[in-house]
């Protein structure tokens, strides 16, 4: 498979078409927006955190397939995690997206590993990481995250 086909592999296109946990929920405890000013991308994340656990994770926004699929997979992975565990996974995801890092997968990231090819497309790494930075900002009580 070419890099391009790897980038837009079925799992990613499927999440783009049928994003999980998409849309603004009725209630949430934590919110942040993620901005990628260069692209004009905007995602919004809505978290319900109870006793340090991410009970629900939702997102909305119109973005490219990479950003949509990454957000969709991230919400599935994140739901039910403690914020401490989430931070650990966020750390792994950043390593997965690091183009100077040869590691191709982390067991703890599950389906999120399908995004690994993104790091061969440096201009798109920010698309994949935007929603993660937004959740990080929401957990920390910061209103806006940017990937600039």
């Amino acid at each position: 498979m070419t890099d391009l086909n790897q980038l837009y592999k079925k799992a990613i296109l499927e999440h783009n078409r049928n994003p999980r946990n998409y849309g603004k929920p009725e209630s949430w405890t934590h919110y942040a927006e993620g901005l990628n000013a260069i692209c004009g991308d905007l995602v919004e994340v809505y978290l319900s955190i109870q006793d340090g656990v991410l009970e629900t994770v939702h997102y909305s926004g119109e973005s490219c397939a990479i950003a949509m699929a990454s957000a969709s997979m991230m919400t599935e992975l994140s739901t039910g995690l403690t914020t401490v565990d989430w931070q650990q996974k966020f750390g792994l995801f950043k390593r997965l997206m690091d183009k100077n890092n040869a590691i191709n997968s982390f067991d703890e990231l599950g389906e999120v590993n399908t995004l690994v090819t993104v790091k061969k497309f440096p201009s798109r790494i920010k698309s994949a990481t935007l929603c993660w930075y937004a959740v990080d900002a929401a957990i920390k009580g910061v209103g806006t995250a940017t990937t600039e």
Partner: protein
Amino acid sequence: MLREQFPGLNVQVHGKPLVYLDNAATAQRPQAVLDAINDYYLNHNANIHRGVHALSESATVLYEQARVSMAKLINAPTMKDLIFVRGCTEGVNLVAQTFVRNRLKAGDEILISHLEHHSNIVPWQILCEQTGAVLKVIPMNQLGELELDDLDQLINEKTRFMSVVHVSNSLGTINPVKKMVQAAHDKGVPVLVDGAQATPHIKVDVQDLDCDFYTVSGHKMYGPTGSGVLYGKTEHLNSMPPYHGGGEMISKVTFESTVYNAVPAKFEAGTPNIAGGIGLGAAAEFILAAGIDKISARDHQLRVYTEQALKQVSGLSIIGNAKEKSPVFSFVIDGVHAHDIGTIIDHCGVAVRTGHHCTMPIFQYYGLAGTCRASLAFYNTEQDVDVLVESLLKAKTMFQ
């Protein structure tokens, strides 16, 4: 063939021949421009307007010849009306801070249009914050043209300045700036025209337009990055205070006071981008030799061909369909986001821009986060357009 004079078009991208359709972001440069830059560094490397030695004199001559070439290109009455700047952004900021600022009081109005690049919005917003003036906007319509029916009402007794784009970078719309300048002058309002996207495509005659200021970006018109000129009417430039203080812009300095140099040196503090200026002059000479009428005619052919060709891509909508426009095609495709299109067609060798193209208010008007933009230059070919279409069809197939 003029195309053969652009060596930057001969590279391969992802193993495919480059199809360069991002000319509105920055154009390619002809060999003559590259040679002029090299010639300066190799044979005339010295600072200008300073030394008495031979190289300094020959470098100064080259630099000032470039100013003459640029004056000829835009038909300025004299080369002294041209200030070398880094580009249109610096030109707009210079005018905002040294010409307009002193004329403003709280409640006064500055008029721009909905089609402006951020570089012709933000400097005015900064000025409004500094002075309490208010920014007003000439509206646009669905075609991407300015709605000028109410221009006479928008230019009122509070309006102190108007700054409008000649050719839209994101939609290609060519605005009727001569008519707009006339309308503003009828009410005594001076006008700046942002010509970043005009000089590479259409004839610019600042005397015919009668604008008070005109900005030119070097790298959009086949010249070097970081080069450009600001044209201003002599009486304005003479009355304006300096923008930056430093060397070159003075005629006498003591610790008590400084006497400023004459225009244009008054606005050219510090050692300038000498190679860039000389390269810009070469770009102007290139356009003059190629003939702007021929370039415009070729643009028109490419516009007609591309409009037809893009119809082969179902679900593709062109954003901005002004009657008068340069060969710029902003478009969206149902079901495929602009950034994904950009990435996929890049692998076919096709370079386009994706996003908001530094014109976020335009896409807010259309309710879009951004578009893909294919912006053509006269050296593009029908085959380039065919490759674009093939690559777009491929992107669609991948997302089916």
